[in-house]
């Protein structure tokens, strides 16, 4: 099977500093990988490379067998959902955010899909009209998640997506992600929570000092 994402001897440097060193790994469709490692070890950089928000300084990344440098970046990113560690909402209302993925595709917002996702995350559809300045950190995180799931991605990248959530909401998010994974969505999830990292994931990728420390099969 062709890996969905393959890293071949990937280095990423920022100035003189090597943030990722000699990364080689293969990720297959439907994988669920927890990414762990100390702060500053290069985990977020790894996700940014997967989403092509940055390019490798050395080495190559293949997406479904094609060199990432030869793919259209915007089209590629449309197939990848990415939730940042600190969710960024823009505009004035929740609707401004949820209509954005439709606007950039020149499509009208699909109310049915939006409502389905609200109910999956156990949020009221009224949220659409809420002003983002009035949302709590946890609500912002869930809206950001919904925003990246409006068009079901092939790969979902989560950077500590539940760090701002209470235990109840964390469980809701974990269940949604597991369902998505069961539907075939590949999940790469950075987490600092040891229990969470082993709960649903199939593999555990440990990164330390910019290098792969281990890749452990969990199931």
């Amino acid at each position, binding site marked *: 099977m062709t890996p969905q994402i393959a890293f071949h001897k990937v280095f990423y440097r920022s100035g003189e500093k090597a943030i990722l060193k000699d990364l080689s790994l293969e990720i297959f469709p439907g994988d669920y990988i927890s990414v762990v490692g100390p702060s500053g070890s290069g985990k977020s950089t790894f996700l940014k490379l997967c*989403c*092509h*928000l*940055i*390019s490798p300084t050395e080495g190559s990344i293949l997406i479904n067998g094609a060199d990432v*440098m030869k793919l259209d*970046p*915007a*089209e590629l*990113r*449309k197939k*990848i959902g*990415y939730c*940042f560690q*600190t969710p*960024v909402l*823009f505009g004035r209302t929740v609707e401004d955010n949820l209509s*954005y*993925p439709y*606007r*950039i*595709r020149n499509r009208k917002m699909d109310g049915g899909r939006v409502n389905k996702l609200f109910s999956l995350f156990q949020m009221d559809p009224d949220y659409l009209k809420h002003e983002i300045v009035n949302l709590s950190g946890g609500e912002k995180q869930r809206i*950001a998640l919904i*925003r*990246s799931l409006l068009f079901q991605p092939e790969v979902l990248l989560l950077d500590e997506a539940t760090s701002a959530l209470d235990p109840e909401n964390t469980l809701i998010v974990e269940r949604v992600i597991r369902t998505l994974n069961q539907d075939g969505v590949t999940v790469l999830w950075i987490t600092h929570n040891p229990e969470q990292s082993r709960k649903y994931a199939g593999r555990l990728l440990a990164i330390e000092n910019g290098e792969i420390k281990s890749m452990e099969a969990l199931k």
Partner: protein
Amino acid sequence: MNEANISFSSLMIASLLVFVSLLFSYFQKLKLEKEILVSVLRAVVQLIAVGYVLQYIFGLENPLFTTLFVLLMTFNASHNAAKRGKGIRNGLLISFVSIGAGTGATLAVLVASGAIRYVPNQIIPVGGMIISNAMVALGLCYRQITADFQSRRDEIETKLSLGADILPSSIEIIRDSIRTGMVPTIDSAKTLGIVSLPGMMTGLILAGTSPVQAVRYQIMVTFMLLSTTAVSSFLACYLCYRGFFNDRKQLL
């Protein structure tokens, strides 16, 4: 009508006004004495020089010279504006194109409408006003756009990660920057006649033109400054935003 005619001796007496600011600086320990003297000397030397140059060019009545002079002013203004936009790729070229286009479009309308004629003593002072206004507007645009591309990095990367192209991911920043460039001109238009009698109008009145005629000129100036800042700010922001990304549509 009494035309103002400044003699050399009245200028000398007026120069005493410089001492007022020097005295203030000295007694208030502002330590601005040297800077005041240098600025006054520079202003006098530059103005005298430009006076002679203009007198020479006005005498030539040569459209080519007039155009070259306007281009030179545009280049100087572009150079100055580009300095405000450190971090903007091709800042000088973008400024030159933007100020040039804004100035060109406005001057073309003014000449075509018969408001002014393409002669040096009309094109050069009017062009100068337009160009310097565009320069200030561009400086503000550049400051805003570079600051926003720094402070709103996460927002842009979020939009890029959602699959947005570089224009939709920066459009808010572009709009805010154009607005920043245009607002001072709009604000000063709002207060014309109430807060300030602008330089051109004051000059015309001092030179003996009737206030009603001077007002007509001032209205023309207001229109032309608005159009130039709009065209120049719009072009500059739309031309420079690409420089914040690489060809892989990644934020630099």
